[in-house]
């Protein structure tokens, strides 16, 4: 073979490769390919609070009520409902034409069974069930909730948008023990889970539910019409490398990256083939939070906790962790700014404080020099820098700090331990919450103050907060609820349940030919469309 023949052969090979490469990169407009923010492992969105399981749930299940982009509760599977004058009897009528993926109609019995299972696992569900005397199903499309006393969050609970969402499952599935995972994924949502194509750690596939009847309203938040425009939605669970995700998106092998690494943000914004949609509520998408362990020294002392809160200026955390100014903002409220219960009440200790004040507070607190054990997750890029900032600020305020590095899963296991820090316990960890999970005093786990027995990790104990939360749960007047939320926040800052560290936006990026984005609280994929690629 001569050199020229070799060159010709190489040219032919290159042409074939280029052509097939281009074909591979062409996106079928009926298929949406997404790289989700995390791996999908647990397929039961009631059994776990993991956001990936929740997002999987939104694909295949429907809900009785939903929350729109303005945090208002809207009917979804429910057509109409009534509330008795004493607020103790609620009657709900289901929409006509609701059908599970197996062709069976959605009945009131399915709804009641689903609520009962959810009410054993979800914090807000458990709270609601303390009010519920009984539920019944007078007709196939009507169910009633009888309450022992008036409850101010019935609709908020049924329409809550985040973990755990009260998804409606067939009764045969919902009858599964709440502490056992389901193995039948029949829903009535806009997409059908293709179980035979689910490969853990590889891919998860959903097909359009042709029989789904969407509501007429425009989509907003998790409310409104759920229009499924794709025949097939594929979650790419194998593509974890941030740089490779970006390369795959630029080449058109995938359509959406749910959680873009911040360092790629500027480049993605400038890429004419990509779009960075503002899908998150203007109030901010996530909040960083520092959690104290109230059981052990030094944070068993409220004055010491307040000194730490005073030292935690939000800008420092946000600058270090997020870095891009337009992707973060400070917020004095424990509830996400922009949501109904957000306020600055009681936040002066943090919002109007400084390091000098923190040092004075620590001096006056009687702090005895006990080192603060901070758990630092090294593998969770969205929060890994927060502990370093916290450690530095605490040292400046006069604390002794023991910063201990570990992987996130070790942290998750260790934070459940109530042992003293020198025996495998801890004093502080830092985390992040999505807006919907900290939008009110019931869902915000960090506000639970029932002590060691049943509070969230850190185990604060405060009778006044619990009393105020109980009043909030019973209150049906929205203006009074807002006042109560403010009072709870004031008290929470007083006793130092935790410290909010500012808000930031998760960046979702998609190909430009993907359209139909709308404001939501998470990553949900109805209403989106895809035009054939132009190149």
């Amino acid at each position: 073979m001569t050199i020229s023949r070799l060159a010709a052969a190489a040219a032919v090979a290159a042409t074939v490769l280029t052509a097939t490469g281009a074909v591979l990169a062409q996106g079928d407009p009926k298929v949406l390919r997404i790289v989700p923010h995390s791996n999908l492992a647990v397929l039961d969105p009631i059994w776990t609070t993991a956001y990936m399981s929740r997002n999987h749930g939104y694909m295949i299940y429907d809900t009785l009520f939903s929350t729109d982009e303005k945090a208002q509760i809207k009917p979804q599977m429910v057509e109409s409902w009534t509330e008795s004058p004493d607020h103790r009897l609620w009657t709900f009528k289901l929409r006509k034409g609701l059908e599970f993926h197996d062709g069976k109609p959605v009945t009131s019995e399915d709804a009641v069974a689903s609520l009962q299972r959810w009410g054993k696992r979800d914090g807000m569900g458990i709270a609601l069930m303390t009010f519920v005397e009984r539920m019944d199903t007078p007709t196939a499309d009507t169910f009633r909730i009888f309450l022992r006393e008036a409850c101010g969050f019935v609709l908020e609970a049924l329409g809550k948008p985040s973990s755990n969402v009260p998804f409606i499952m067939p009764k045969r599935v919902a009858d599964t023990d709440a502490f056992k995972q389901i193995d039948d994924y029949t829903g009535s949502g806009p997409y059908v889970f293709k179980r035979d194509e689910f490969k853990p750690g590889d891919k998860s596939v959903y097909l359009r539910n042709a029989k789904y009847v969407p509501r007429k309203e425009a989509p907003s938040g998790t409310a409104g019409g759920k229009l499924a425009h794709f025949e097939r939605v594929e979650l790419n669970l194998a593509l974890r490398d941030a740089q490779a995700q970006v390369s795959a998106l630029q080449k058109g092998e995938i359509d959406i990256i749910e959680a873009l690494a911040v360092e790629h943000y500027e480049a993605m914004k400038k890429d004419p083939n990509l779009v960075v949609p503002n899908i998150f509520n203007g109030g901010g998408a996530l909040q960083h939070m520092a959690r104290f362990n109230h059981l052990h020294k030094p944070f068993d002392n409220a004055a010491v906790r307040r000194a730490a809160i005073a030292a935690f200026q939000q800008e420092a955390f946000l600058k270090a962790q997020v870095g891009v100014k337009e992707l973060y903002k400070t917020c004095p409220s424990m509830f996400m700014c922009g949501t109904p219960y957000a306020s600055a009440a009681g936040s002066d200790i943090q919002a109007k404080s400084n390091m000098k004040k923190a040092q004075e507070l620590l001096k006056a607190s009687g702090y005895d020099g006990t080192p603060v054990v901070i758990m630092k997750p090294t593998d969770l890029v969205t929060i890994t820098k927060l502990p370093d900032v916290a450690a530095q600020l605490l040292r400046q305020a006069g604390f002794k700090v023991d910063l201990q590095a570990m992987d996130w899963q070790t942290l998750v296991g260790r934070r459940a331990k109530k042992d003293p820090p020198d025996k495998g316990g801890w004093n502080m960890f830092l985390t992040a919450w999505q807006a919907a999970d900290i939008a009110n005093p019931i869902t915000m786990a960090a506000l639970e103050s029932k002590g060691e027995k049943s509070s969230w990790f850190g185990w604060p104990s405060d009778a006044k907060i619990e009393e105020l939360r109980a009043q909030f749960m019973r209150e049906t007047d929205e203006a009074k609820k807002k006042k109560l939320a403010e009072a709870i926040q004031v008290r929470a800052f007083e006793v130092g349940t935790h410290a909010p560290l500012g808000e930031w936006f998760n960046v979702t990026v998609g190909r430009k030919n993907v359209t139909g984005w709308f404001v939501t609280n998470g990553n949900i994929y109805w209403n989106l469309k895809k035009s054939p690629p132009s190149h």
Partner: protein
Amino acid sequence: MWSFLARRVAATLPVMLVVAVLVFLMLRLTPGDPAAILAGDAASTDQIARIRESLGLDRPILVQFGIWFGNVLTGDLGESFYYKTTVASLIAHRLEPTLSLATLTLLIAVLVAVPLGVIAAWRFGGWFDRALMAFSVLGFSVPVFVLAYILIWTVSLELGWLPVQGYHRMADGFWPYLQHLILPSITLSVIYIAFIARVTRASVLEALGEDYIRTARAKGLPEVRVLVRHALTNAAVPIVTVIGIGIALLIGGVVVTESVYAIPGLGRLTVDAVLARDFPTIQGVILFFSFIYVLVNLCVDLSYVFFDPRIRY
């Protein structure tokens, strides 16, 4: 030969037993709670305790070991905490990508490295030899992910020849299957090319100094025949050993390459299982890896007979 084989197979049993006990104990002694991980961020302590109970993790370690080991003896590796599917099916699903990647990588590595090593030894001290040594140092030094990014940028993004990521099963078409394997295999093979080429060069160089080579040349044999038939064959034992180690390492997991190219292989499965403290999966894949190591070593030992007639079992 047969008694050697029987002895070696019998010797695998205590090895596997030791591995099983060590892995089981080490997992229980390391920090991290699978129940807390599964429950999610907002779960309460009570809920985590209930999940721990449902997974059987509240039982004494000896009881847990007894149950698991009893199942293993019957061929049941258990069910993944994380994925609620059998560990055997998880391994089976990940085996094809891993074996494909390992096979193509080694094929490229051997086809490139052995001739390079032989030529370098033949031209010892010349420019080719020096260039190969420089390439070897580079091959060892460049991190796999850097090489992967460079290849993705040039071959996939700039030239548009091959896909950036993903894996296609062979059953879904051979060409897409091969297309998705080319870049990862080239990425991985560089370090093996460097390694095998160096070992080949050293072994062949040693063989070329032997009397039988002088004799072969004195007989007037062509140089290619001298190199391949006499020098390379006699230098084969260390080369085969290195290739054997390469097979075992590749099947044992190439996490970075699998992560960058989104290949759902055994390496990624192992890392995911470790991060999630998915005890049954970790135990299952490590037992599987141990078995593969033992098997590959056995095959390598047996192959010596073919390359060196002096070796008898």
